[in-house]
């Protein structure tokens, strides 16, 4: 068990170092960092002096070490475009993305699991077939198209919900939240549904197939034979066992929610990190790109690690094979 955890943490550090290396090479080799600091009249000596001061003449490995050291202290330098510290920019945008991701994950879970349970219990019913068809469409439609269609229906045609921006935010010092006002909730609905729809269909299909699988097992037959009520069998015995893979998938999907937030934030002009990253890609703002990359990679690795460890904690069978390996 201990060896398993250590190995997983070792892998996580390796992944992070790889991403840091990519991020560093972006920083160092794509475009010249000094270009942004000099004007046309800067002499060659001054340029060389700037390079020396920045440490660009040191061996690459030393520079990489310095880059990692700075990154650990959230120091990613200044944005090329706005001349503000990248850490501040990201800090401003972070709450918007996290609240959006959180809301859409909750939506995916609380809509996906009941739909999946129903479709798994009554696979032949009309509603279950409808769910299956809708989920196929949900998987095939690209995120941005779902967003556009939702805007078309709910904002343009019916005028029910705002179509862009994040309104009604309250500043709580380090965190600006939209959860405290009605306006904030209203502007959250469409982006959250857009972002969560794909995950919802995924969870629904997963719960459905797991439910159908579990319902065929012997212990369910035995539970029925003992005369337990269908409610107790379906929810106490069957659903409980389907939830283990659901935890894993949901956890892993949290990472892709953050990645797909780039698209949703663009469609709805949501002022989060994804929108900032995309603008950075368009203007080749390397410090923001590499900082975002590192941040997202850390989030991904952290989520994967937690899911792996949770899995071991929940399912004893994995613990045994982990020890054997």
């Amino acid at each position, binding site marked *: 068990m201990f060896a398993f955890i250590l190995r997983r943490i070792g892998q996580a550090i390796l992944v992070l170092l790889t991403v840091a290396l990519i991020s560093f090479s972006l920083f160092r080799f794509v475009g010249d960092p000094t270009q942004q600091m000099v004007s046309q009249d800067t002499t060659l000596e001054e340029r060389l002096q700037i390079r020396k001061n920045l440490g660009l003449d040191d061996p690459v490995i030393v520079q990489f070490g310095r880059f990692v050291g700075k990154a650990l202290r959230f120091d990613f330098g200044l944005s090329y475009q706005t001349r503000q510290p990248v850490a501040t920019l990201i800090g401003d945008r972070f709450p918007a993305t996290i609240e959006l991701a959180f809301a859409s994950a909750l939506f995916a879970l609380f809509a996906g699991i009941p739909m999946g349970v129903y479709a798994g219990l009554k696979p032949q019913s009309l509603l279950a077939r409808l769910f299956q068809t809708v989920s196929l469409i949900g998987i095939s439609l690209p995120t941005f198209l779902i967003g556009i269609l939702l805007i078309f229906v709910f904002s343009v045609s019916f005028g029910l919900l705002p179509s862009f921006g994040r309104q009604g935010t309250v500043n709580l010092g380090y965190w600006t939240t939209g959860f405290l006002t009605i306006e904030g909730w209203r502007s959250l609905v469409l982006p959250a549904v857009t972002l969560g729809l794909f995950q919802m269909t995924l969870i629904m299909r997963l719960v459905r197939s797991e439910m159908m699988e579990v319902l065929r097992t012997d212990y369910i037959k035995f539970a029925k034979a003992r005369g337990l009520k269908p409610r107790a069998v379906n929810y106490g015995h069957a659903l409980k066992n389907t939830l283990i893979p659901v935890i894993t998938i949901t956890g892993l999907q949290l990472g892709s929610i953050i990645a797909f937030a*780039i698209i949703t934030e663009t469609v709805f002009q949501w002022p989060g990190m994804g929108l900032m990253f995309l603008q950075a*890609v368009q203007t080749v703002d390397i410090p923001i790109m590499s900082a975002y990359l590192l941040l997202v990679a850390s989030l991904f690795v952290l989520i994967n690690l937690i899911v792996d460890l949770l899995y071991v904690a929940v399912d004893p069978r994995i613990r045994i094979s982990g020890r054997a390996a």
Partner: protein
Amino acid sequence: MQITPEDAMSATLSTREVQRSRSVMASFLDSDIWYSFTRSWITMLAALITLVLIVSAIFAHQIAPNDPFNLESLNLLDGSKPPFWSADGEWRFPLGTDQQGRCVLSSILFGMRISLIVGFLGVLLAASIGITLGLIAGYLGGTVDSVIMRIADVQLTFPAILIALLIDGTMRALVGTARSEVLVFWVLVVSIGLSFWVQYARTVRGSTMVERNKEYVQAARLIGLGNITILFRHVLPNVVGPVLVIATINMALAIITEATLSFLGVGLPPTEPSLGTLIRLGNEFLFSGEWWVVIFPGLTLAILVLAINLLGDWLRDALNPKLR
């Protein structure tokens, strides 16, 4: 459907060849795959739609009612026309026009053509990289295998769209701001290719590890053939089957990825629009009531992807002996 080219060819071949190709066709019509195809009307519908869309993309020049790229033929007076069934609609522009008077239907036909080409080349590149690395990893094993597979693991941690976006962004930075349309096109193809190779590599590696211990590989080694010849002439044909299924499903994903990148503004430019670019441009007119400029390209994309997905799903089930 695989019969059509063979059928056409057989007209010029000898009678014996004709008989052989007839029997190939007969055995195909008798096969499980054809049977499961005819049993599922939804698959047949998906195949029909895919075929129609691909054919109309290939012959876009011939069937498009107008030329959306010829600036001289555009007339601002034709701008913002609704589809033909509305009161102001005209038959000249079946699906209406945008503000510059470009025919929406023609734009869709040409856009779909670009989307399909980028998707196809992207999948081709991804499959080539994945198959080659998978063959090498599975055949050689050892350090080479673990290095390739660790890279694959790291890449698999991240969603493909993020990787495509990153590669696209980096290459744009490297290429610089003075970039031509041709270059942007290949940047997209490479981003898609590099984002989707992992799945092929994993599958091919698995089956290569099984194949490499078989007698025909040992025999080939015994008569002194080189590793490359053995891998590509002997092992490859035996491991390439499952790749077909992945490629079909990936085609839908690649088209979505291209459309997403173009929608985000880091894909194809308005001068050479794909479906994604058309949706991005049309999106600006959504609020002025000209819904047809964005909804029709969007629907086309959705139908194309859905049809290919259905075909891929069917192919996966039909080729999977466990489900028969």
